[in-house]
């Protein structure tokens, strides 16, 4: 049960055609060490990327996209990555945008064994196209379904060797839920400590969700 490995080794789990969940909100909590390894040492292609924003012009995901390895994006706010904007212009089906809370809840449901949920967000907008609309107590809701990945990359502030992750401040965002919604989960951590050194009350992601643990270059 040794989860410690290198970024290069961990990203080998990403296969052609995989759906990859990538934690982070802009640069906060973005697993750049892992994305850089994906960029430099992996050739996996036809990837579907699930990410709030697909990063910024200064981060590594845009470079993976420039390699032509991303065929599909599920996101919410993509104004910070012009490549994703361009994908949407070139092929409107290549990028699916969701209200941020809907994206978060879809991923949470994917990790929590819930098939779908009814949200009032998006009613009366183009978001409702193709979705079931249903009234509860006189108010309209849309049915949204769960979203999961083959692999997830997340970033922790501190992790213990069992994989328990503490994500500090506003870095929790999507990583905390994505780690529960993929078949194989890699965490990079700024600091890695022995089991027992992390306060049980500070665990953002229980170690049972983490399959591989990598020292972040942001240490």
């Amino acid at each position: 049960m040794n989860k410690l490995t290198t970024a290069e080794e961990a990203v080998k789990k990403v296969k052609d055609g995989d759906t990859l969940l990538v934690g982070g909100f802009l640069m906060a909590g973005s697993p750049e060490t892992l994305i850089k390894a994906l960029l430099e040492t992996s050739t996996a292609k036809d990837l579907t990327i699930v990410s709030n924003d697909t990063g910024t012009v200064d981060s590594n995901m845009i470079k993976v996209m420039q390699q032509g390895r991303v065929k599909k994006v599920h996101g919410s706010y993509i104004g910070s990555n012009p490549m994703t904007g361009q994908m949407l212009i070139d092929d409107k089906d290549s990028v699916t945008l969701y209200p941020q809370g809907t994206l978060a809840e879809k991923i949470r449901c994917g990790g929590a064994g819930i098939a779908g949920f009814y949200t009032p967000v998006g009613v009366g907008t183009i978001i409702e196209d193709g979705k079931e609309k249903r009234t509860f107590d006189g108010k309209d809701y849309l049915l949204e379904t769960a979203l999961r990945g083959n692999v997830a990359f997340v970033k922790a502030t501190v992790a213990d060797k069992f994989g328990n992750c503490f994500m500090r401040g506003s870095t929790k965002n999507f990583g905390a839920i994505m780690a529960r919604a993929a078949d194989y989960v890699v965490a990079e951590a700024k600091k890695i400590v022995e089991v027992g050194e992390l306060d049980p009350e500070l665990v953002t992601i229980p170690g049972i969700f983490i399959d591989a643990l990598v020292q972040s270059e942001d240490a």
Partner: protein
Amino acid sequence: MDTKNFIAKRVAKELKDGDVVNLGIGLPTLVANYVPEGIQITLQAEHGILGSGPAAKPGEEDPEIINAGGFPITVLPGACFFDSSTSFGIIRGGHVDVTILGALQVDEKGNIANWMVPGKRVPGMGGAMDLVVGAKEVIVAMEHAIKGEPKIMKTCTYPLTAVGVVKKIITEMGVMDITKDGIVLTEVAPGFTAEDVQAVTDAKLIVPNNLAVMEI
């Protein structure tokens, strides 16, 4: 005082003690600078903070504590942090009292369009749809028109962010309430008349006899 700060200062007068407030990027963030004396509010940031404070001072930036625009901020005593699903549970669940944000268009049904212009590059809706549906009160704070083109419409022509959610619009020209009868101009800014406001407004404004002057 410039137009944006003028608007922000008037918006701040809408806040009540104890309010949980989400401020959109741009003009709305200025509102935090004008919260009236004696009024304590809690700022919510949709990526996972309650109790956001001012921007971090140069040299004191913490990359793990940022605002929804990605910039380093501080937090106030009593703040807390959480993940995105928890955050949008707070927003969608009706626990944000006021959200203040800009718009491309607002119409007399309270519809708002603020996330895409057809034919232009689409940045995505981010948390805007959740916020306008979830918050108890939605205040649109924006410049009244763009180069004379009205933004306050009889009917929005851009893709909507949400239907029937806006109750108040505050611009550099006045304050408007959206009622079931239409848009009521409740205050007009110094130097403008109701006719001036109507001239750059697509919707027909209802002007009460006792039209007040907008004070900040």
